[in-house]
């Protein structure tokens, strides 16, 4: 070969495309999932010791064996849940993940996409959330923040008495904690159902995947 310069690659080298889910999102997602399972099932055992409402959770669904084991599990997993949540929230704000992937959430967009979803005409595009997804994901993040804050109010009604007051007092903080849990469990059921309906969304949450080119 003579000294011919190799043809320069012209736009054939793909730009570095971001993953559908970044490594921090994937890591915090699965740590949160594991911690949440421990928190919810041990929380049900704690609830059963003094039920707020006229029912108990079936014993086989609860964790800890008895009240002391459940409390110990709850107050161990809470560190995992809370630190993981903090990492995710800081990352979400600093990296632009929230702004880019969860916002904006407009009533018109949610209304449009809800109707489309109910008619089974809503596209489930990888790497880009529709308005209903944005609402649900932002909602469950808010619920996890609420469950942590109300949990602190129940745990430390004297040291964190301002929080407990904000929750309407100790007994009311327990009720808030319960309904935040119920909302998270409700989200979880819908979330699992949708992953079963659209199974190709699961792999990217494990290995990352590759997001499609941003549409203009």
């Amino acid at each position: 070969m003579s000294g011919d310069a190799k043809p320069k690659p012209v736009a054939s080298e793909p730009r570095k495309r971001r993953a559908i889910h970044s490594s921090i999102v994937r890591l915090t997602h699965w740590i949160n999932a594991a911690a949440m399972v421990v928190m919810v099932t041990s929380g049900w055992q704690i609830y059963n010791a003094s039920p707020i409402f006229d029912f108990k959770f079936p014993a086989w669904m609860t964790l800890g064996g008895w009240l002391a084991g459940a409390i110990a599990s709850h107050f161990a997993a809470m560190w995992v849940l809370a630190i993981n949540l903090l990492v995710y929230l800081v990352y979400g704000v600093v990296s632009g993940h929230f702004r880019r992937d969860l916002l904006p959430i407009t009533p018109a967009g949610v209304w449009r996409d809800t109707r489309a979803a109910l008619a089974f005409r809503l596209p489930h595009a990888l790497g880009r959330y529709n308005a209903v997804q944005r609402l649900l994901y932002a909602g469950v993040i808010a619920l996890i923040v609420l469950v942590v804050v109300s949990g602190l109010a129940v745990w430390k009604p004297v040291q964190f008495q301002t929080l407990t007051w904000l929750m309407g007092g100790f007994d009311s903080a327990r009720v808030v904690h319960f309904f935040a849990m119920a909302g998270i469990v409700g989200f979880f059921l819908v979330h699992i159902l949708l992953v079963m309906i659209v199974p190709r969304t699961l792999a990217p949450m494990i290995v990352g995947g590759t997001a499609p080119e941003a549409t203009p």
Partner: protein
Amino acid sequence: MSLIRPPRSSLDDLKPELVDLERRLFLRGSLSLGALTMLTGCNLVEGNSVDKALLAMSRWNDKVQAWLFDPNKLAQTYTRADITTPFPFNAYYGKSRAPAVDGAAYRLEVSGLVSDRKSWTVEELRALPQESQITRLICVEGWSAVGEWSGVRLGAFLDRIGADSRARYVGFKCADGYYSGIDMATARHPQTILALDFGGGALPREYGYPMRLRMPTKLGFKNAKHIAALFVTNDYPGGYWEDKGYNWFSGS
């Protein structure tokens, strides 16, 4: 001791149900999932590792709570209209088995790191300055109830018996076999009292006659009833429920 296995003693009030083998295995499996996220190198095969991890976290939580504890922060107080009636009974035995302590023969024994180990009669305790409080008792089970207690401020009593102010714990032994202990900071909290009265009269038998510990800054089970002996110590005093797995500090 196994934290995630209910104690085998009869528990009239807490009624932890015995778990069958199948459920135990499920619990172990799902607990390990949580333990895995908490600990690296946790041996999931060794049966006791989950207990060990949970106990280590509980001791860590003791330290965090001691750090969070503000000696000057007061628990909310209530009015007589807020008092819960009837006030719930709770113990590790049924109401009928609450001990009948003879008030005339009663002597509070004082020991440990104190300069004056004289024992105290009910009359002598009543002759000390009395303080009253209407506060919320929060049970580890989750229920809560507002009651009125009055008695001797523990901090003032510790001063009177010449307690070592640098000692770490105040421990209690009770007429019903119960025992517990608290950190010195909580012992000196202004709302921590050796209660002699409940609802304006002497403590009824089932609520801890003749004297109980009352502090709104800790869960109900830390508020020992029928106190027969008090000691100041630097040795971790444990407690009846605490030794079965409940968190020792259990601060509110």
